[in-house]
């Protein structure tokens, strides 16, 4: 369904080769699994939710594919679609002109930003969501990305509904300098407010979840899930190997690795994702608040609070 022919040339290049591999299919007729090299029929592959039937490799989904996968049909309403990145630093250095790159990305990916946000229902239960899209400058987080995610969280607070964020990101966006870094604080602060309002936050880590995104909202889930085999890390394999002069063992810094080390709650196969989210939404909608009434409150106060 997605127009994936043109791979954006990006500055956040760490996972770009991977992205190219993911997209190495010929007009959707046939797809080659980058992990087990199996040739897959395009139609079967899409029917299998873009998961390799042989080795379970989870190909990347774009934001709209992911929304279609997990939400009730036609229930998604997009918000803040018109928010776009600007070039606050006039970033222009050595072949990298940020303003031009933004133009190109918007055209080639047909997205305004690296995240799509809004509200929807899952089995009739409402939630606010922000779904990242790796195609747009490697899913990197700039001001507009952070703003849209923060607004999705605030929508959750305003409408008193849970929030889901699906991460897919190479980390902070270098071209916006410190503005990008501060989006980590901004989104985390919004999540702290959500938490104070007693609303749950579900974090879904997809391939890849790295850098400043991991070190902020992605790791703050009340429940944190990950798709199998996703790269999940702070520093990234290239940085770790370069810095430590070691070769990382097979399977390091993946979903399974962070599960084993106690950083997330579950690794969930894509076919089970919708059902898992349904169960979680159900659990967390049944909070018993009856014991929260102030003990010393008088009768009229109890009435006032319980009717509100």
């Amino acid at each position, binding site marked *: 369904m997605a127009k994936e022919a043109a791979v954006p040339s990006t500055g956040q290049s760490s996972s770009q080769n991977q992205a190219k591999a993911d997209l190495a299919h010929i007009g959707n007729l046939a797809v080659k699994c980058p992990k087990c090299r199996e040739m897959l029929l395009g139609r079967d592959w899409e029917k299998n939710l873009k998961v390799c039937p042989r080795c379970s490799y989870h190909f990347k989904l774009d934001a709209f594919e992911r929304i279609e996968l997990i939400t009730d049909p036609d229930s998604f309403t997009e918000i803040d679609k018109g928010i776009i990145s600007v070039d606050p630093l006039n970033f222009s250095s050595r072949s990298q002109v940020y303003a031009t790159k933004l133009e190109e990305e918007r055209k080639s990916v047909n997205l305004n930003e690296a995240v799509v946000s809004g509200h929807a229902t899952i089995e009739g239960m409402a939630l606010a969501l922000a779904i990242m899209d790796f195609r747009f400058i490697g899913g990197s987080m700039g001001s507009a990305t952070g703003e849209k995610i923060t607004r999705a969280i605030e929508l959750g607070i305003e409408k008193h509904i849970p929030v889901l964020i699906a991460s897919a990101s190479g980390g902070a966006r270098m071209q916006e300098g410190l503005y990008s870094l501060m989006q980590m604080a901004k989104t985390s602060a*919004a999540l702290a407010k959500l938490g104070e309002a007693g609303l749950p936050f579900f974090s879904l880590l997809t391939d890849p979840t790295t850098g400043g995104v991991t070190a902020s909202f992605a790791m703050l889930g009340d429940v944190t899930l990950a798709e199998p085999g996703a790269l999940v890390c702070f*520093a990234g394999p290239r940085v770790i190997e370069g810095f430590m002069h070691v070769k990382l063992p097979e399977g390091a810094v993946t979903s399974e690795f962070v599960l084993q080390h106690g950083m997330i709650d579950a690794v969930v196969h894509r076919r089970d994702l919708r059902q898992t989210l349904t169960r979680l939404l159900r659990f967390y909608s049944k909070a018993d608040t009856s014991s929260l009434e102030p003990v010393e409150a008088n009768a009229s106060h109890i009435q006032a609070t319980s009717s509100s």
Partner: protein
Amino acid sequence: MAYDLDFEKPLAELEKKIIGLQRKGDRLKPEEHIQLQEAERDLRHRTEEIYSKLTSWQTVQVARHKDRPYAIDYIELMCEDFFELHGDRAFGDDRAIVAGIAELDGCTVMLVCHQKGRDAKENRLRNLGMPHPEGYRKAGRVMQQAEKFHFPVICLIDTPAAFPGLEDEERGQAEAIANNLYLMSRLRVPIVAVVTGEGGSGGALGISVADRILMLEYSVYSVAPPEAAATILWRDTAFAPQAAEAMRISARELKAIDLVDELIPEPLGGAHHNYQQAADNLKVGVLRQLADLKKLPINELLEQRYQKFRNIGKFGYVPVLQEQEIEI
């Protein structure tokens, strides 16, 4: 202290001349005495001139200067008393973060600081000032304690980055930092953060979600260390100077775009030329900010802190045609 950075060569020559003349002591001829005075005046003027227009990359070099005062130096020069608190109570004690209770101008405050090492041996102990997850968790632990006892929190920031090792991934570097962002955004005491040297990436942000962010005049704060940014953008650390310029990471540039609240002036030629004066300036800045913050009722303080970070970011709008662009 010597002028030893690349761009300080003219200063180093003047300094050499001055030292040469000073060595003569009493044997100084009257005309040499005048030469000495002129050279000293010249050095001061040239230093002022060069330092008034440092580039971002030059500022990085000053911020990383091997003699630059570190947290423990500032603590000794600023505080009447200090008792260090160790350990995260879960895994270990990270010496790249120094935390503890201090007496500052008669009041108890909680200090949370990065600490670099001065020599190879100390740098092993301090891990080059690059914290592990247990460092951020120690920081989180003592900040919660500060909340309990109503101690203001003061953070001194000076780290290249959080440490990027495999063990750090295993112990949850990302989670440890994220948790501090969450915690600090709602911590019910005033928080003042001061970047004293390098503010490197998430490693710096992990202890600097504060009501006020101050920077020493020749410090830097960036989304990633210039070398890492150059690697991400151009796959080559050799372009670190270009990355530093393009990302505008010097204190002055960041103040110009209002991402920091206040610049703290440094002694002529940088903080390493006069520790005491640097510490005095730092103390004055911190105390003034704390005095302001203490006037606010706590809920207002928290709301202002929220809005401070909430409003950071520049973005635009484009008109959206309903239903038209959603062909995917």
